[in-house]
């Protein structure tokens, strides 16, 4: 059993940077990663904007020293890069020294290759190597191999846009219960025609920069990214004299049970998830210093989440912002990306701005933080809400 769940390493690749320090620099410089799409040939290219990672697949394969005959999807490569950075960042040299697990997450899995070679598989034997990379667990298996995690607990969660938050939550529970001493948790998703067209048919893609919590918001920008945290038990932290970046203090998961894709008007699921996370963390709402909101900039999400914030925090909603204006909505990875940003907030005592905000929403009076605010940040609450009614909240803290 471990009382604390320490975060001792982080790794990230997103549209605003290829590693931890680049991401922080971009956040501080208000450098958005939103642009027109360049790596996928879609007929919607002039109608949407995305958060795309600069590297091509060949460049990513080069960074990982993969052999030419590898069958990595883009999702797997992004995940492997971020997970390796997290392990390195945590100063881990011998991964098998402690009971180490890997809990990853994805929503698209190997769909990028499937949609490229769907019919070619039937004729071109050279392309058939990607058939096995389609399933959601494939990228996780590959990341485990890259990290040298063997004969261990390795699994994958897919709960749409809350996936990575749930991976972090499970990891924290496994550390607390003593099932594992150390666990690498996070998520990854690449851009694909599948998700572009899916969200397009739902009519929730913005044709310009996304504007979370703005009255005139037009929808989300899809993004691609991967991020991982290393979670370690008290025992490991003490034995290795580890530098702790922060703690996973609370977590909550609830289902909206309202609609397959839409959130309930009053944010029942999000409210329950936040309340549960506060209970696990043993914190009062007034003790939260910053809320990193899910804030996708869709009409439905921001209204529902805003109402849930009002229900949980009543008239004292803490400083809140969505960082999706920087990265786009990175689907299954979002919870892990925003976990890294929450740790940045704690480490640097800063609340990041909710970029692109102009007009107050008329349904309520709460306004996101629109410029940098430097103040002591000891606790951050981060929301991730997804299809299937899946609502998750994580609370990160500076001290145990």
């Amino acid at each position, binding site marked *: 059993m471990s009382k604390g769940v320490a975060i001792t390493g982080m790794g990230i690749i997103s549209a605003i940077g290829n590693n931890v320090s680049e991401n922080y620099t971009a956040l501080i410089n208000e450098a958005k990663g939103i642009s027109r799409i360049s790596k996928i040939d879609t007929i919607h290219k002039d109608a949407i904007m995305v958060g795309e990672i600069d590297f091509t697949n060949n460049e990513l394969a080069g960074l990982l020293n993969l052999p030419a005959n590898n069958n990595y999807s883009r999702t797997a490569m992004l995940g492997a890069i971020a997970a390796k950075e997290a392990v390195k960042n945590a100063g881990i040299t011998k991964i098998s020294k402690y009971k180490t697990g*890997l809990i990853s997450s994805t929503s698209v899995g190997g769909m990028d290759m499937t949609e490229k070679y769907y019919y070619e598989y039937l004729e071109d034997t050279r392309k058939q190597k990607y058939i096995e990379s389609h399933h959601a667990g494939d990228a996780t298996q590959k990341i485990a191999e890259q990290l040298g995690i063997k004969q261990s607990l390795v699994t994958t*969660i897919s709960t749409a846009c809350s996936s990575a938050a749930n991976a972090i939550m499970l990891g924290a529970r496994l550390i607390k219960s003593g099932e594992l001493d150390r666990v690498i948790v996070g998520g990854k998703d690449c851009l694909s025609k599948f998700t572009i067209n899916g969200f397009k048919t739902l009519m929730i893609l913005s044709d310009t920069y996304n504007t979370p919590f703005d009255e005139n918001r037009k929808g989300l920008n899809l993004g691609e990214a991967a991020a991982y945290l290393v979670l370690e038990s008290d025992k490991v932290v003490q034995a290795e004299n580890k530098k702790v970046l922060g703690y996973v203090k609370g977590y909550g998961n609830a289902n909206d049970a309202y609609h397959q894709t839409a959130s309930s008007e009053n944010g029942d699921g999000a409210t329950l998830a936040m309340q549960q996370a506060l209970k696990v963390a043993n914190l009062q709402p007034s003790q939260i210093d910053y809320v990193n909101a899910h804030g996708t900039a869709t009409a439905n999400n921001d209204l529902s989440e805003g109402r849930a914030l009002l229900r949980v925090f009543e008239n004292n909603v803490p400083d809140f912002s969505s960082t999706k204006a920087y990265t786009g909505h990175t689907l299954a990875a979002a919870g892990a990306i925003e976990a890294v940003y929450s740790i940045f907030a704690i480490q640097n005592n800063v609340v990041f701005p909710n970029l692109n905000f102009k007009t107050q929403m008329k349904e309520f009076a709460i306004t996101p933080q629109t410029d940098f605010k430097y103040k002591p940040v000891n606790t951050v609450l981060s929301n991730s809400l997804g299809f299937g009614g899946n609502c998750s909240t994580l609370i990160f803290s500076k001290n145990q």
Partner: protein
Amino acid sequence: MKKVYINSVASIAAQKTFDNTTFLEDVTHYTETVLPLIDPNYKEFIPPAAARRMAKGIKMGVVASRLALHEANLENVEAIITGTGMGCVRDSEKFVSAIIDNNEQYLTPTSFIQSTHNTVGGQIALGLNCKGYNFTYVHSSTSFESALLDAKLMLACDEAKTVLVGGVDELGDHTVKIHRLIKHIKQVPVNSAQLLESKTEGAVFAEGANFFVLANELQKTSYAEVVAVKTYNTTTSTVTQVVEQFIADNNLLINDVDAVVLGCNGDVTYDLPYDELQNQLFANIPQLYYKHLCGEFNTASSFGFWLGARVLKEQRVPVAVQLNAQTKKEYKNILLYNQYRGKDHSLTLLRKC
């Protein structure tokens, strides 16, 4: 830590297993490479209009979960944890092919919405109005065991008192076609009674849904105790060593294991670890197998879990699943072992309650 019990079971498979008053007395033998499903009457559980809109996996999952809740005498549960290796493949196939065939035009959102891996878990929650914890695991052949591990952790720590756990996978035409090409599916049909003698590459694919109510209170309907579940992404030692360690970690001796349920699927390349256990460590105890009956799919091991639970409750092993001639007067501890294509192994220990 609280004990964890299986309080109900529900299976929809290539056998008539949805009726718990029978227990594999009357099995269907197939000579196929892909098995059909023996469907319950979905309309008894879902309004016909809703049933028509639901993909196969959703329908199977929703009905299996209803059956499981009914047997456990529950109206609702505190958490829903689903395992699915491939997710909703039919809707994924529909949406990808529509994107390609129509050059990204004239698309409708239905198949995209239903293609999400957590659709089954979400639909079950929606049907029950269950606002509790809801997770979906999608890790190949340990998708179900990951769900089981989560449920066990939750119940043992008393974070919930009742959890619905299930494994569900559906087949899609294109997925079948391409897995045939890469020989994950057998090239030549084999009679299910002779599956293990086929000596050919690949497995016989199928689909199915097995759902269970797990709880930390024993009740009249209880089948067995879930003592332990462990997953291994790879094995670095022999399967015998892995099993010996697992048994020792649970304070048992190999002799305490009364029967072993093996996930062998007749793939000549990948059945070797099963053969090793069958011929050595567990040569002298009853051995059970089941994939000749339910076929192979990422969550087929949930059928093995169903089988183990039923054997412990009824204290008898149906002839159709006997892999050797051994029998026991009493079945107390049953060990389940599964892996797929040499990866993602799992060991589950069930005990009579």
